[in-house]
């Protein structure tokens, strides 16, 4: 009997590590863990956890081919290759739903807009990595100001009666602004709506740079932020295409798919 070949993708992000194992029937295992200080350890832990979920696979060394991606991709010594997360997100999304042509990936510390070509490769991309405004870290900082956990903050704007404008050009200024708005006793939900609106505007600018072609989806950790999704939908006047798997795993999935074409 031929041995089953499994392919691995490991996305070492700034705040989380993700791994996806692809088998003959699709996704065989996956994992999502908080990042360690050392990206190599993050990668190892994430992969070990994902491999453990696949019966009969054993350890990382048994993967037929492994591709590392994400911010810490250069620090995954046991990977066969590393590919940028831009190509991996495009491929991951394409695999889930080839009708999606535009992706906005909002991770822990950067934001990217990707135009996907008809074969799942990247047609064009734009990045904002200079400033944390509008990224996962920004939302974490905001939720701390509101004394809430991230999930509660993500849903807060859904109850807003109106949107109080907030500048999100810079996360430091945004924090000052939000603190003074709260001090003036504005309803927290309305301020939260302003924050979501400001981040959506940043996405808008980025997407405009690559050209918006439907359908549009959001990947990365912030894809779970309901308030942001509602705001994006309102701004773009189109639905945000849902993904069949956890949007935070898309980068790792894309890496695993690219690995399966190599092995």
């Amino acid at each position: 009997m031929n041995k089953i070949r499994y392919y691995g993708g490991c996305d070492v992000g700034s705040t989380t590590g993700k791994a996806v194992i692809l088998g003959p029937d699709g996704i065989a295992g996956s994992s999502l863990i908080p990042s360690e200080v050392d990206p190599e350890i993050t990668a190892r832990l994430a992969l070990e956890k994902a491999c453990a979920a696949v019966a009969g696979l054993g350890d990382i060394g048994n993967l037929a081919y492994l591709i590392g991606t994400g911010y810490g991709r250069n620090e995954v010594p046991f990977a066969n290759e590393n590919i940028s997360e831009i190509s991996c997100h495009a491929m991951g999304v394409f695999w889930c739903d080839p009708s999606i042509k535009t992706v906005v990936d909002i991770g822990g510390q950067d934001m990217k807009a990707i135009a996907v070509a008809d074969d799942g490769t990247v047609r064009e991309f734009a990045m904002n990595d200079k400033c944390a405004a509008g990224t996962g870290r920004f939302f974490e900082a905001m939720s701390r100001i509101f004394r809430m956990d991230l999930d509660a903050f993500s849903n807060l704007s859904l109850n807003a009666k109106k949107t109080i404008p907030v500048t999100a050009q810079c996360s430091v200024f945004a924090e000052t602004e939000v603190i003074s708005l709260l001090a003036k006793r504005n309803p927290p939900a309305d301020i939260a709506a302003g924050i979501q609106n400001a981040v959506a505007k940043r996405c808008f600018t980025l997407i405009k740079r690559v050209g918006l072609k439907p359908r549009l989806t959001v990947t990365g950790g912030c894809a779970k932020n309901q308030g942001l999704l509602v705001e994006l939908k309102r701004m773009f006047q189109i639905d945000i295409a849902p993904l069949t798997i956890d949007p935070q795993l898309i980068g790792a999935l894309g890496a695993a798919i690219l690995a399966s074409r190599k092995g």
Partner: protein
Amino acid sequence: MSTIKPGLSDYLLFNKYRAINLMNIGRMAAKHGPLDMHRDLKRYPWIWDLLEVNALLKRLVEGRSGNYRKAVAMVTGGVVEGVIELLEGIFYRSDRLILHEDLLPPEIFRAMGLQPWVPELLGILMPMLVPDTMQKYLDAAESEGIPPDICSLPRATIGMALKNVFPEALAIVSSNMPCDGGMSSYTIIARQMKKPAYWVDIPFDFKNERALDYFAGELKDMIAWLEKHTPGRMDWERLKEICEKRNTMAELELDIWDMIRHRPAPMAAEAIWMSHLWFFNINPGYDTSIKLFTDLKDLTQKNLEANVSAVPHEKYRALLWNPPTLHYIDLMVWAERTYGVSLILDSMSFNRQPFIDTATPDSILKSLGNIIMQGPMSRHTRGPAEANYFPDIFHMVKHFDLDMVWVAGHIGCKNTQAMSGVLREKCRDAGIPLLVIDYDLMDSRITPKEGIQEQVGNFMENIMKAKRLF
């Protein structure tokens, strides 16, 4: 086409040019004498940075071989000689020294018997030699209240004026080129140096006789002003001679440009852009400049005939828009080796008005005016963009058979920044891959070398689907 790996002859060539540079520098120092040299090194501390030229030579010839390597070494050596001549101008001809903004025609100043010094020159040269060296001048300008968003070239130039490291000059001539930041910087420079200053005005919409007459009139007034404020006197015969020699340089350059249309290109990168940047802007009409372009043409021709490509494994041909990445000047050396990218031509070299009509003084001034108005930087920062900016980009891509456009997106170049949105859409429509590198011309604190590599890498691997060659 075959390619050549660096071999013993390449190693010897590098050492030969290194020795020539050292010899030229040594000769200059010996001529000046130890005491005067010591005094001037204190007066002009940036001379220390200029001594790093062989480190630059090493970075630029790295991994390059044969005639291409030789051409790059030759251009670098020629720049060294040019700089030495300028320094000797400061040392021995200070009674005829004037400062002039970098886009004004040196042909005129030379013909007047004046010794020109371009304040911006150091801001262009020094980051190539010592990448972080301009930071102290940038900070000096900022602490005097110059906003950090002004282009770092005029900002660093202001910083140098404030730190009093420019030579004493009789007079200053400036203009409204190429941008508001550059134009405004001379308000501070003239005020700081307390010298009489004259400004030349270049119209916005320049493609007509009216603009040409106006600008030629401006040049005439500038000459009259200089004759009043300096011992310089216009020698029209001398000007004619300089311009005719410049025409010879332009003919040679056009021949080279014709040859690099060939795929893969027999010559590339610094051999093309640095030769234009220095010799047409600083030493036009010099016999040594004609010699250099003759030799460059010869090397290019040899490569073409022997079927040798400048960049081994030329896979992608690039256009560089905007000035090159000064603080990471060996970007192309890296891109050549990493992805097989050949830099064919750039916006600082390409022009459509190369020749001067030397029939009469008026025709010379008009032609010089035309060369400036229609020349790099000036042409692309004025006149409707629809007429000048985009057509040049698309013409170059087609004419030189280029695969992609790289914009060195210097953060301080507002003229370029403000066109990127439209350029993106136009390139998308035309199917031309576009890379805009976010960085600052000379301040590596904005985007370090690694950040530039990452942006290029992301573009090459994701959009061009390039594989790393090693």
